[in-house]
């Protein structure tokens, strides 16, 4: 419970820090700008593909995390492990 409260506090702090940055960045990148692919998100998509969106295995719980929260990927493991056991 203590860890959970600490995490909530940390999340709120990060959100508070991020909010002004969102508000200030007003110069939008157009769907077709100086770069032909600007606005399509192609450069961002590699960030996604390298990380957990395109590569969820990097989010699997570590050995030290057995029995802890685990996040959505741990949920998948739990859900489909139950299905396998039936």
């Amino acid at each position: 419970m203590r860890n959970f409260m600490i995490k909530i506090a940390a999340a709120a702090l990060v959100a508070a820090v991020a909010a002004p940055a969102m508000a200030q960045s007003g110069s939008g990148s157009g769907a077709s700008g100086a770069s032909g692919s600007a606005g399509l998100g192609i450069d961002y998509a590699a960030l996604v593909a390298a990380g957990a969106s395109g590569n969820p295995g990097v989010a699997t719980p570590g050995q030290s995390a057995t029995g802890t929260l685990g996040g959505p990927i741990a949920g998948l493991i739990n859900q489909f492990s139950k299905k396998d056991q039936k």
Partner: protein
Amino acid sequence: MNGHKKAVLITGALMLASAPAWAQSNTAASVAASDMRGFAAPALQAPVAFGARWGTVGIGGYGQTCDCNKQDEDGSIGVAFGLGDPDKYAALEVAVASSSLFGDTGSGDSFGESGSVGLKLHTNVPGYASFAVGVNGTGRWGSKAFKNANHSSVYAVASKMVPVGPFAAILNLGIGDELYNEPNKDGAGVFGSAAFYFTQQISLLAEYTGRFTNAAVSVAPFRTFPLTVTLGATNLGERYGGDVEFAGSIGMGFVFN
């Protein structure tokens, strides 16, 4: 590439990618949960709220057709690693991407000459859910045109796994600015994705990035090997005068702990 050729290409690729996963799912019971390493993706372009932790490294590539250069295609590659433990407190996913993979046109940068960094601070919360804040496209390098045309985007996002009978879904909702918002519009836009998992290895997903509506199928061909292939179509609404385009990504993760 005309529409018919695109459809044939997509269909063929999906059949090839999904066959091993369907075959392997029949032998699923013989694999322990701790050996599960192959997972289908929950999104194609939208950020999710979970990510790499300490001891994990991911590499990935993305490509799509587009009316953006003479080759009518563009791509990017990236590498990501994690610091910290999102189950205890939080973890920071650090990703570096090189853009213009096919690029002697478009941004004007060739391979490796332009790119950016993504940072995501994420934590897991009870109920198989996660929360994250991050920035994509920061610390960019490359030509002036590339840097001027692409601005960093800040986002906050929440993700949750939801059981759906014997199946599962991962739902994802976030807000972000710049690329996650309408072009030339201040403030933040909403993005989100929904992925339905037939097994851990096969997902069907739809997403809205704040600009584009995309749909894709994702397959992890091997249950115990962390390889993920996602193929789909972007800009289904044909917004901003663009066409529906074919897109694909491939990612592989390594766990060292």
